[in-house]
């Protein structure tokens, strides 16, 4: 797991209502003919953030990024960067650089020329360009590869050249389109770490587009989950995972068990939901914005459920049900149990394998009790 950027205490500016956003996207809509790619998106991103736009294909995340780079103009709405309106500024006049998914290295130039290209366009003196290129090559650990052509490099090296080239002009904002998408798993984990380190060192604001939720969770200071051109939720990775605001977000990030239920008690400090699917009541230890007899969904992560052979003491006669272990997936660090409830519903439960080769572990076809805490799950009305 990658360490999240350790910013000082005032590094969560999104929690400070007085903080001034660095990138301000206001009511941006983009239509291609009749297709709405991005629909009325408003988003504030703060300085030195590593913001991830997360979504499936066709969610509009790439279109939003391309509008920030200036390759597409919004149909309506405005984009402000560092206090300046950039909505209709051409890409070559923006203080923004982009790292492309395909890396887009110029095949007829060597590594040095690729990195120097943007600096030459700025008309920097030759000596300074050479100095800057050397620094950047050192930063991405490619000092000996300056005279290679892109096709003589491995995938990981190309990725680093692309990053160095995008950083060369010291942009205020760096856009990264699936920066790790083309790398294999092992390399991706290493590179993730390096990317965060470079971002921390330089303090540049990063906006990363990705479809990989693990990547987003480990990289980002905040995540914006996109769905069908709209922002479904914005929040820190823990918020997104533990407190999803909708069924879409809960299902999109990580794996989740979702059941339907009816509100039977709606008090300011607790809520009771009857779920026929679970075969028991759900007692939620906090108030929820709902009404008695309302049908809603309740979502719980597999690791929040506890399995046991003995019947645990329920809380307020709720939060305990029983089922049969139908399948076990052994993953080494943990095991995934699929438990069949009498209603026919299957729940996914994960248990950490704390004891080595535990002979007493719960096994196939065993009857087990499932229980969870009063705030283990999320009540979802939308």
């Amino acid at each position, binding site marked *: 797991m990658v360490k999240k950027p350790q910013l000082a205490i005032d590094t969560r500016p999104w929690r400070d209502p007085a903080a001034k956003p660095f990138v301000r996207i206001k009511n941006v809509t983009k239509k291609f003919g009749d297709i709405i790619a991005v629909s009325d998106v408003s988003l504030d991103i703060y300085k030195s953030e590593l913001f991830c736009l997360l979504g499936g294909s066709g969610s509009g995340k790439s279109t939003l990024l391309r509008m920030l780079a200036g390759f597409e103009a919004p149909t309506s709405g405005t984009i402000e960067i560092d206090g300046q309106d950039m909505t209709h500024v051409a890409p070559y006049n923006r203080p923004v650089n982009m790292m492309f998914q395909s890396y887009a290295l110029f095949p*007829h130039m060597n590594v040095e020329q690729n990195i120097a290209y943007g600096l030459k366009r700025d008309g920097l003196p030759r000596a300074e360009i050479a100095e800057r290129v050397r620094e950047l090559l050192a930063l991405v650990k490619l000092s000996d590869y300056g005279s290679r052509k892109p096709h003589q490099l491995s995938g990981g090296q190309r990725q680093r050249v692309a990053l160095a080239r995008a950083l060369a002009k010291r942009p205020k904002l760096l856009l990264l389109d699936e920066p790790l998408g083309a790398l294999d798993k092992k390399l991706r984990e290493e590179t993730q770490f390096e990317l965060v380190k470079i971002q921390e060192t330089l303090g540049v604001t990063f906006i990363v587009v990705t479809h990989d939720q693990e990547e987003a969770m480990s990289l980002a200071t905040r995540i914006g989950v996109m769905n069908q051109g709209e922002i479904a939720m914005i929040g820190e990775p823990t918020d997104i995972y533990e407190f999803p605001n909708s069924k879409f977000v809960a299902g999109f990030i990580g794996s989740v068990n979702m059941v339907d239920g009816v509100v039977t008690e709606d008090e300011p400090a607790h809520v009771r939901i009857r779920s026929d699917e679970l075969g028991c009541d759900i007692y939620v230890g906090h108030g929820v914005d709902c009404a008695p007899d309302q049908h809603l969904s309740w979502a719980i992560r597999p690791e929040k459920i506890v399995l046991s052979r003995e019947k645990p003491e329920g809380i307020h006669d709720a939060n305990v049900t029983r089922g049969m272990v139908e399948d076990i997936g052994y993953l080494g660090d943990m095991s995934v149990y699929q438990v069949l409830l009498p209603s026919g519903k299957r729940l996914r439960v994960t248990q950490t394998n704390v004891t080595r080769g535990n002979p007493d572990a719960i096994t196939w076809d065993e009857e087990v009790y499932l229980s969870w805490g009063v705030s283990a799950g999320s009540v979802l009305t939308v």
Partner: protein
Amino acid sequence: MRRGWFLPITATLGFAFLYAPIISLVVFSFNESDLVTVWSGFSTKWYGKVLADPQILGAAWLSAQIAFCAASIALVLGTLCAVALVRFRKFRGRTLLAGTVSAPLVMPDVITGLSLLLLFVAMEATIGWPSGRGLLTIIIAHSTFCMAYVVVVVQSRLRDLDMSLEEAAMDLGATPVRVFFDITLPIIAPALISGWLLAFTLSLDDLVIASFVSGPGSSTLPMVIFSKVKLGVSPDVNALATIIIGFVALGVLLATIVQLRAHPKRAKA
């Protein structure tokens, strides 16, 4: 798998079908006899005769000038047209342009030649330009049909070009014009070279269109050869044809080398 006899035989027949006429022409160009079809001994005298013939030399020089100019004009216009068709997806009249650009590929030469002749005559009558027909009119005529071939060659290369390369350059501060010269042009250069060579040989080759739009004193090499053959095939035409074949082969070889250098991986595959 056993190779058997089938493949070698069909391959031999195929090559024979394509090259037997050319080989017989080359062989007979070294014939000593005055009669084209009767072999009497080895000689290079016809080459000497060709190279001393002012009419042929003049026509060859004229053809080379025309081919050079026409290929260059066709290259510039064809490249611009290909860029417009590939890079600017939506504009009024795009489909019409795409259709009309490739029309000369299938248009019979006679019709192209005739219509150009009529146009030149009408233009001379109304605006006085081009005055008379000759070098200039042949160049214009050849540029138009060669352009179609250049468009086809350059278009296919441009389609393969990853658009994010151009976007990356723009992102790094290059204006669209700069992007074209810094990124697009160097990457499609092999296609430009082979397009130019193709246009050059096509122009050198053309008899029909040139016959329509040429004027007195501006006979191209194919026209001279054709008029000579009308009077009966003489061995010096064989020698001349052999020289031309040599030049064309050299051109094709160059074009192939350029393409292979640009795509070393494709060559290995």
